[in-house]
């Protein structure tokens, strides 16, 4: 099965390991993620102002690119891209006035009315593939590993685009269970990572990381599975002992859920690009003999 795939900027720069592992595990499940031949910036998290339509334009252009491919569904890996594309599509679908304004502004593009559904890879895994099939593909179950899912915000908020229960999501835990691990729920699974505050106020991120990892440690978590490149970046950057010696943040391996899938599927660990992960993550993977 072929699915239209929108990568977004981060997957090509700071989260290459997310992309390579995702493409490999999906291929192992018989699904080809076909990158759009042409795409642009998703617009990132645009202004929340009601009339701020200009920030939707980039996202809508991408949706038109999907439609051009004869597809009505596009998959993202990046949680922010998911959020931006999905919300822009809701505007185009549900607000005739805004749709008219945006279509009129983009007079070089064909008119668009919200025909393309944006889904996150986790939704494809749950709704199209199914946990049973994933469990069936596992060659090396992650048995005994206490891994928690960390959701961040953009897959769950606002409620209109949530891929799961806003307050008590289980989609990552369900995947982790299918991979044979001991999926651990912890209270900070949906706590904010601090997002873009990393740019101008690193202390906020350090405080957030500390709280999130602290709660994870209390609940017996030994590694965290993430779904958002910005969460991964923030958690990794602020915990690295070499960069923040006084932060007091406990060491906590963080991996993309697709990397864990690749390990459980027994794929060549080269697709995981673990050199991009934190040193703590590599140390943990070695201690568990998951990589050599």
């Amino acid at each position, binding site marked *: 099965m072929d699915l239209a795939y929108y990568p977004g900027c981060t997957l090509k720069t700071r989260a290459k390991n997310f992309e390579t592992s995702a493409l490999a595990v999906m291929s192992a499940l018989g699904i080809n993620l076909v990158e759009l031949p042409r795409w642009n910036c998703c617009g990132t998290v645009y202004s929340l102002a009601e009339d701020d339509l200009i920030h939707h334009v980039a996202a809508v252009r991408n949706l038109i690119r999907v439609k051009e491919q004869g597809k009505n569904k596009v998959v993202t890996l990046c949680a922010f891209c998911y959020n931006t594309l999905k919300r822009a599509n809701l505007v185009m679908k549900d607000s005739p006035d805004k749709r008219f304004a945006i279509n009129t502004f983009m007079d070089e593009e064909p008119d668009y009315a919200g025909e393309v559904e944006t889904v996150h890879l986790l939704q494809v895994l749950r709704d199209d593939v199914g946990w049973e099939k994933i469990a069936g593909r596992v060659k090396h179950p992650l048995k005994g590993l206490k891994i928690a899912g960390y959701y961040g915000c953009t897959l769950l908020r606002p*409620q209109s685009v949530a891929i799961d*229960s*806003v*307050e*008590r999501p289980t989609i990552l835990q369900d995947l982790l269970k299918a991979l044979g691990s001991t999926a651990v729920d912890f*209270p900070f699974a949906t706590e904010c990572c601090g997002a873009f505050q990393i740019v101008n106020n690193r202390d906020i991120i350090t405080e957030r990381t500390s709280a999130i990892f602290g*709660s994870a440690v*209390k609940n017996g978590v030994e590694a965290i599975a993430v779904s958002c490149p910005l969460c991964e970046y923030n958690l990794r950057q602020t915990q690295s002992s070499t960069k923040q010696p006084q932060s007091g943040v406990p060491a906590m391996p963080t991996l993309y859920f697709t990397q864990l899938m690749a390990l459980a599927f027994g794929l060549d660990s080269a697709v995981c690009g673990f050199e991009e992960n934190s040193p703590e993550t590599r140390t943990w993977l070695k201690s568990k003999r998951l990589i050599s």
Partner: protein
Amino acid sequence: MNNKPFIKRALVIGGGIAGIQAALDIADGGYEVILVERSPSIGGHMIQYAEVFPTLDCPQCIMTPKMVEIAQHPNVKLMTYAVVQKVNGSAGNFEVEIFQKARKVDVKKCTGCGTCWQKCPEKVSSEFNAGMAKRTTVYIPFPQAVPAKPVIDTEHCRYIHYQQYMAGKREGKKPPECRICEKLCPVGAIDWEQRDEIIKEKVGAIVVATGFDLMPLSRIPEYTDDADVLNGIQFERLLSPSGPTAGVVMRPSDGKTPKEVVFISCCGSRDPEHGVPYCSRVCCMYLAKQALLYKHAVPDGQAYIFYIDTRSTGKGYEEFIQRVVSDGVLYLRGKVSRVFREGDKLSVYGADTLSGKRVEIAADLVVLGMAVVPSDGTKGLLTKLGIAFDEAGFVVESHTKFRPLETSVPGIFVAGMAQGAKDIPDSVAQGSGAAGRVLTLFAQSASADKALAVV
């Protein structure tokens, strides 16, 4: 227009305090009244409470005389374990079908001795104790039940399961035949052959007093499902001398005395995101009362109440709140974003908007003032009655100010929480008011059609 005789006999649906009051007033007015209650006993929610604000009366003490009066009043026909399933006709001539669930107990023979419910080996969650204790499957819901005659819960009874198994209607392991209640009953009152019945009655007026339920905890997942997170009714049972702990305040998880208790107001209420935009009207007062009773039970404990604003508009209510504050209950103006377990404690994250600070409390017990919603099944009943209800499922009165007890159908009246959130005094007032409307209708009945035609 209508030549049928006007039937001067009323039906009251719901045996809580509003329905009891309505039924007693109609009966005292000299007319026959049928009181239909779907659970095995009348009493409603009020009988579950520990003490009631602002006077701290014991509901078991002040309510049981009314319940007994219902049972003994010559004008009252009490039907418990029964639901109204069909209504036809109009004011003066309603034809009502009442579904009487089989009690499997012959109430004429039964003396209410208690042998059966003391010896029944099968135990399930007790509705009266809001799931905080067990009851047997042949049971009276609580010791002061009216009638004090048990019913057999056929959904859970071992012998019923056995019968279903033998008839090939039930799979799995063969259940024991049991029949202990039958063997031990000194008067042979257990009647396995008793069947559900449909009873037809004719009445001239109907009072809907179907009450409320609390919004389920699952609607607010950020407040977690934990043994030590209770709703208001559960905490009432924990405070009640007739409750599962005989009034000793202890944590359900480990039986320890809770030293830090957080009460959260407006859980779901005044919160369109959770589906309830309205104010539930009773939570401010009962949470204050519960905090006070907790302080009486655990004097060295600390009670916190998170609130949006304290609504204490009833007579004597504001004075009561002042008393609670002066007795050391700490009020924090703000909402709680989440409650989650951290080891032995429950972490409560909230805001104190008066000091502008975030608040984190390590609590032993959390009590949620969950929104009140129309009781389960209300919409279905109101649809059968053909009367209008609002988005939440509360009965719409025919004029909010001048016809507050009339529904959209002449001859059908409303009282208590079925009309909207309200406290006990207002429910009783409406019960009496609805009874007054029924009595007026009966008095006018000679020219009833004419009277009803005037809008």
